[in-house]
């Protein structure tokens, strides 16, 4: 995904169409980050189309796999109850797109800690993403924490990761110490994953 490519202006009129176009884009050797971001943003969230994947857990946010992109990408829906948030994490050398389908999510960007990691991590910026907005991050940009800061509304987001990955590092904000974790799916293709 390094070189600029002939970018098309896509309009995904449904979630199904979005998935179809993603397969098309990722079938090529080169994929443009801007193109994927614009495509994700073009899809106007329609809950009827994704409700079957939106399984909430009372205690923490959930990851629900929608499509595994023929091994080229993972498309998943994350469900955030009120007050649910992630730890600060990296993206294991992959590209990460995050589109809001419902509610709002706060994204806080952090600098990578020093090798030894012995002090409070440095916040770079923060923003609140609104419905249908799509954010992008990769390891060269930095680390982030994503959280639903609402105490009244749940939030739902659509994530695309390429290449797919199932482990990443989480970071302690106060010290910069990192810890490798394995991520799991709460459900896959609309079916609850048995633990």
């Amino acid at each position, binding site marked *: 995904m390094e070189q600029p490519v002939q970018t098309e202006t896509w309009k995904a009129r449904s979630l199904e169409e979005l998935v179809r176009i993603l397969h098309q884009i990722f079938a090529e050797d080169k994929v443009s980050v801007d193109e994927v971001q614009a495509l994700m943003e073009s899809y106007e969230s329609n809950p009827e189309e994704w409700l079957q994947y939106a399984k909430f857990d*009372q205690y923490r946010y959930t990851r629900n796999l929608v499509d595994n992109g023929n091994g080229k990408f993972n498309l998943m829906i994350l469900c955030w109850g009120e007050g649910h948030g992630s*730890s600060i994490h990296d993206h294991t050398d992959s590209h990460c797109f995050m589109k809001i389908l419902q509610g709002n999510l706060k994204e806080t960007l952090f600098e990578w800690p020093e090798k030894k990691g012995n002090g409070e991590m440095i916040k770079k910026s923060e923003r609140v993403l609104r419905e249908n907005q799509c954010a992008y991050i990769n390891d060269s940009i930095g680390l982030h924490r994503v959280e639903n800061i609402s*105490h009244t509304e749940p939030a739902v987001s659509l994530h695309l990761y390429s290449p797919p990955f199932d482990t990443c590092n989480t970071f302690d*904000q*106060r010290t910069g110490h990192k810890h490798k974790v394995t991520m799991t799916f709460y459900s896959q293709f609309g079916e609850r994953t048995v633990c």
Partner: protein
Amino acid sequence: LPAGLSQWFPALEVLDVSGTGLTEMGTELLSLPCLHTLLAKNNRLPGGPGLAPKGLGQAPLARSLRVLNLSGNRFSEVPPALLQLRGLRSLSLGGNRLHGIPPDIQELHSLEFLYLGGNFITAIPPELAKLPSLRYLVLCDNKIQSIPPQLAQLHSLRSLSLHNNLLTYLPREILNLVHLDELSLRGNPLVVRFVRDLTYNPPSLQELAGRTVKTRNVPYAPSDLPESLVRYLSLASNCPNPKCGGVYFDSCVRQIKFVDFCGKYRLPLMHYLCSPECSSPFSSASQSSTSQSESDSEDEASVAAHRMQKVLLG
């Protein structure tokens, strides 16, 4: 609520009146016998002094209501009427203007889920620990300065959200929450360096009497004492020194020590001791070397620490 609601829909089980500008509940609530879920978020409650109609405690609702969501309203205190809803399992008062939690919250003995995030709460009453079924407790985004050690009596607790408060330390009893899977602490000014604070306030007469009753197993029945004292006696904490076997209520010596949770990060914990003379194996008076006492506390803590492996959404 519109008049006649209970006549048109006598079998109503779920009622969602969120975002309707509601300022009070009204008497219609009393006549809905099957209602188990009431969602009234993002309204203007309470509009006046009384949230709910009189007689709520005797209405069928008091036993049938399981889920109540009053988040995003204007409550500056938990309405006393609410505490009569004995069957309540889930209560949300997130995003209101609460300054505290009433000790009578313990009346909601079926409560499993309590969401109080996004208020102005400064302290947690120890009585909150008397909720035997509480599994999920959210206290994030408040102004809480300390956690009472009694909170460790919440044996069913799975998830505790404390992020974005004013905590500088945690009571070491938090290690006793063996079922805790999630604990969020970020956004608190947790003390990072070792701090010693040996100020000690002598115990009150009530405290001394309470200690004697407990350690000598003086028998008492609820009819012997005023209710407030019965309650007080139930809030005794055990001295962490295993050789002491004493109990304390409010009077204690404080020292802040660090415990390393599975290499994640050092959490400052408050070791509560009965008195400066009660020397615990993992702490001693100010003269001892810090490294010895620190490693002792780490040994003890590592046993408890691996119980909290999945924890610490730092």
